[in-house]
């Protein structure tokens, strides 16, 4: 991690006073085992080149992290690339320049623009070259981007993910450095320290005079503050001037798609609730694979239901579900679903002999060859009075123009209506259930509805 400051022209020697670094001495400071070093590689009347770099202690960098149990934590780019780590380590070495507080005699030079070039890197960033340019060019810098080498004995990557930036322009040393201190963490893939409200204050200070008018202001703020909570605080702060939003417009098509998805979800839940409402035997309901509890929470409002088991093996999803249930808890007449940590791949006696079992958009997430065993367990061991299965209708994918793709990355299969019917009939054949098929969502005359449903009702007395 390094930064070279180059200057050409008259009076460049003054810069050594603005930096408060004596060209006759080597500068080296230690902080927690990391060396912060500074030297002049050129120092003449017309030309100045100074390099500040950090030789980190690699073991210190990987200490005490929550990620300590992941191997990627130990082999990473933090000790090489410029990042917020670099900024915080060199901040005090460059303090005089950043704060514009040289010795009294040189104060007048603080606001003096020089012909400056900053070379810094390596940069690890998901941003494209153009996006990087868009950060610096509006500030008047001529930007050059060089990439590292990526020649491997096997094909692993086409080009190097290590880049080195060089920006050139007329600016004061203070402004140039402050811009780098804001933009280096914005480019970098992640920050090393906890981001709190002080960050906003720092942004305000370093951003004075250039960030307000930067066309990428929103983008810079969002990346600099990283976490939504902090970013949201900014909305109420003094810094953000109302209007003038440069946020890129959200993709209209994507928005419609999302909306459609929400609507289909709601229709699915409504359909299931309608079916349940028509039933007499609905005291106990099991939502198998209840995920974040979206369906279960709606079942809590159905009259006549006395127990809802929300069955889910994902701990993360279960926590989300719990939160969802708690929010509704106080609502009169709401039956709080009981989260059950369990899985379709195990037998669970708690699920036996219930009125209604639901597999809503679950089976397509399971490898097809594993399904018969699950269905057998439901019919043979759990023996619900009713089973409801919903799953996508593959035929309808043409309406979405999915070109052979599944609707979700995790889908293991999607069935046509005929395939679904055949599968349901085959797997329930040995058990006393009556089958009814139905569709959910807008019906297409050739392809049917986007979601298909089968209701299995246990025949009386069998």
């Amino acid at each position, binding site marked *: 991690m390094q930064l070279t400051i180059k200057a050409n022209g008259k009076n460049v020697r003054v810069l050594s006073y603005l930096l408060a670094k004596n060209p006759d001495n080597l500068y080296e400071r230690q902080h927690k085992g990391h060396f912060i070093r500074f030297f*002049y590689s050129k120092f003449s009347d017309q030309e100045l080149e100074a390099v500040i770099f950090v030789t980190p202690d690699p073991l210190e960098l990987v200490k005490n992290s929550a990620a300590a149990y992941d191997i990627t934590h130990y082999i990473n780019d933090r000790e090489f690339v410029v990042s917020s780590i670099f900024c915080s380590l060199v901040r005090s070495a460059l303090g005089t320049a950043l704060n514009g507080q040289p010795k009294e005699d040189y104060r007048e030079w603080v606001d003096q623009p020089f012909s400056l070039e900053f070379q810094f890197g390596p940069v690890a960033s998901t941003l494209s070259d153009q996006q990087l340019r868009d950060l610096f060019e509006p500030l008047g810098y001529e930007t050059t981007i060089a990439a590292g080498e990526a020649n491997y004995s096997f094909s692993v990557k086409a080009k190097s993910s290590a880049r080195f930036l060089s920006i050139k322009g007329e600016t004061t040393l203070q402004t140039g450095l402050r811009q780098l201190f804001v933009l280096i963490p914005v480019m970098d893939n992640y920050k090393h320290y906890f981001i709190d409200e002080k960050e906003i204050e720092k942004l305000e200070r370093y951003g004075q005079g250039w960030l307000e008018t930067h066309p990428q202001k929103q983008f810079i703020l969002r990346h600099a503050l990283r976490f939504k909570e902090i970013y949201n605080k900014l909305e109420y702060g003094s810094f953000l001037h109302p209007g003038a939003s440069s946020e890129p417009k959200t993709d209209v098509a994507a928005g419609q798609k999302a909306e459609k998805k929400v609507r289909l979800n709601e229709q699915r839940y409504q359909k299931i609730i309608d079916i349940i409402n028509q039933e007499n035997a609905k005291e106990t309901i099991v939502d198998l694979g209840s995920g974040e509890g979206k369906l279960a929470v709606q079942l809590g409002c159905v009259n006549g239901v006395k127990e809802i088991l929300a069955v889910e093996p994902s701990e993360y999803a279960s926590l989300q579900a719990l939160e969802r249930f708690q929010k509704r808890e106080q609502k009169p007449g709401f039956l709080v679903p009981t989260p059950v940590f369990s899985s379709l791949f195990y037998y669970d006696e708690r699920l036996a002999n219930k009125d209604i079992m639901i597999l809503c958009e679950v089976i397509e997430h399971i490898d097809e060859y594993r399904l018969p065993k699950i269905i057998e367990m439901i019919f043979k061991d759990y023996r619900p009075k009713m089973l409801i299965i919903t799953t996508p209708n593959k035929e309808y994918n043409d309406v979405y123009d999915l070109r052979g793709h599944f609707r979700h990355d995790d889908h293991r299969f999607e069935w046509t209506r005929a395939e679904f019917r055949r599968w349901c009939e085959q797997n329930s054949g040995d058990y006393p259930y009556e089958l009814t098929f139905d569709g959910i969502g807008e019906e297409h005359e050739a392809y049917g509805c986007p979601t298909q449903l089968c209701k299995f009702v246990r025949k009386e007395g069998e």
Partner: protein
Amino acid sequence: MRITLPHAGIVLLIGPSNSGKSHLVKHLISENILSASEAVSSDTYRVLVSDTEFINWRGKPQEEADSIYDTYQAISREAFAILDATVEARCRLNKLTFVDATHLRPDDRKRYLDIARINHVPIIAVVLDIPLETLLQRDDQRDSPRGKRRIKQQYQLFTKEKRLLKKEHFLATYFVKNTAELAFERRSNPIERDIQHGIDIIGDIHGCYDEMIQLLENLGYVKNDEQLYLHPAGRKFVSIGDCMSRGSRSLDTMLFFTRHINNGLAYMIDSNHGWKIARWLDGKNVVLNHGDEKVAEEFSEYERKHGAGAAAALKQDIKTVLLKAPSHYVFTRNGTAVLVCVHAGIKDKYIGKQSKRISDFCRYGDTDGFDEQGKPIRKDWFLHHQTKACIVWGHDPKPQPLLINNTVNIDQGVVFGGKLTAFRYPEKEFVAVDAAMDYSGDADSNPLKELESKRLDPPNIAKFINGYTVLTEAAGDIHIPQDAVKSAVDTMSHYTIPVENLIYLPPTMSPAPSPSSLEGYLEHPAEAIAYYRSHGVQRLIAEKKHMGSRAILFLFKDRAAGKKHVGFETEGVIYTRTGRRFFPASMEAAVLRKINQALHAGRYFEKYKTEFVLLDAEIMPWNLKASELIRHQYAHVSETAILDRQLLEQKLAEAVKSNGKVAEWRKEYRHKLDNAAAFQAIFQKYCWDVDDPDQIEIAPFHVLAHSEETFFDRSHLWHMERNRELAGYSPLFVETAFKVIDDAASEAAVIQWWEEITAEGHEGIVIKPEAFIAKEKNKLLQPAIKVRGRNYLRIIYGMDYLEPENLRRLKKRNTGKKQRLALKEFALGIEGIRRFVNRESIDRVHECVLGTLALESDPADPRL
């Protein structure tokens, strides 16, 4: 008069003071019939607790006498409390104890009858019936006479009680008038036998006579002229019980055992069916069912053929043998119990003892009521077995011999169409004969079929979700905590291959407990070798460690074999160490197809008579599985490092011309640049492009199991031979280089070899004890220790880890947790495979796999 002393239990001497009880004990001790510790006397215990044997309160003033009497009573109470505790302890330990006290009152005797009953030991009474005159005479001559009045009182009580004694539940009651005429004989434990030339224990025969004869022949028994089966080495055979009922030739089988037992060639153990038939033969009113009725039919048939007389004689003979069959036998070697044979089960505290209660337990096992169908609910008595004696049992049919907690079930349900198993001791080998047919004629309640049909049922989650304990053969109890279970179930439900397919997860492997003592090395073979040496392992094997990704190959002979073993048609599966599919589906199918063809071409499945093979392997190249990791971590890091260091080195090189002070920094950065280049070079060693399956290399280093056997009893040399054999079948399989370490020279050779291959960039070596399962004082040792090369470790500890200041700190690492995990996971891995091969239910296999998955969710330093 002859008195037979039991091998253990209580001999209660009964008689008034001066009747000669202590005298008799002294005599027996002096004759070496009894050892001094085998007798306890109330007088001795009074002295022990109070320094006083007797206090005479007679003739003292009333007030004084009362007080002395109180004191004496207190002393007696304390003395008897300790005496009784001693007697009880000795009974628990199955020792013989003479109790020398008057025992005139019924309550005094009842105490000892209770102790004997509770501890399942015999109790006999030796009553000294001496005339009053003699008693009085002797009292006069004592040091501290008890006094006439007291003797007379005691005598009166004695004569009154004498009549009652016969009704009390002593095993034997001897009335002795003259102690001088007594002869004593000591019996040894009737159910203890020396192992002599070896024992062959045969499981539940149930009238499968032909299979039994075949089995005896397979065991090496030869029929002599008298139609007796003798073993040339003098071995004897044992029926574990239930040799009759259900099958078609119960009578022949019982007759066979009767003749062999009467000739001292065989033993038989009591059992539920045996006991019922015995009681039926004894004329008791019993209901014959569960196949017992077939025995009665056979007897009727015999009577029709040979007449009533012959039938009666036969019944008498068989009845005698059946009634005499003990609840269990304890076989000893050099006087130590090493083997216990019992029909259905036993508690440790019952071993070597006999009682009605023990007989019941041994016949039926530990039962906990009955289920809806009226079958007994069996409790797992064997989980509580703790002593070192191996318990062999039958009664409960299992598809394969079940080794659990140092017990062996050898009932493989021959009568239900299974197998008749024999367990050879001390060899601990199984010999089995397949049933010619299912003789039971009861398709609905065939326990083997029932077990098989439920074998692959989804595991009951209730057994796991609150945390659970797996009892492993290799390392005892392994506890799996609740939190870890949940995350493992989550993983099983979303990412892994199906439960019934995932029968094994490989254990983690630790480096040596201490870092290298050499400068400039973090790991070195010397410490790994020292670890095993310090634990008494002399012969080791060093195998080259491949650098790819760990994989398990579960390969079936054909799709039908897949269906048979895991419940769905499959040619096999290749999965990672976390149970996920190794390859994308199409690549997996292609690789499996190729391997399957190669194994068939080599006639592998025929050669080993197996329907599957389970291999533990490393699959190369590394980038097959790790390309994302390499792209985003290793390659990326190497590029940033090189770019950073190169530029700085250039800048410093320029500056050094005008500014000599930066020379040190420049040197430092040149060195650092070399490190970065070495780092970038090393991971490329393990990577190459794979365009078709032929470019994949698979190095199988353990053949874990075939359909009928596991190979944990084979040495690693055997496993390496199999590795070479497999490499001969398919170019996909590659050989693993290895060397044996058994002396200083071979040790030096291995170290040199390690230096050479790691200098070239190979990952390193794995050092293992020669035996697959190595133990020291019954404690499991690390199954393998990895020793990674200096260069390789750059991709683990960072490119600059060898800098002295870094290495000094890295050497402080602690491998304790990693080693504990490695042992637990190793034991779980072996256990799961054994259970699967024994065709136990999948939930018994799954508890091991889920355990490993759960243990792995407990974080440890990933660099170890």
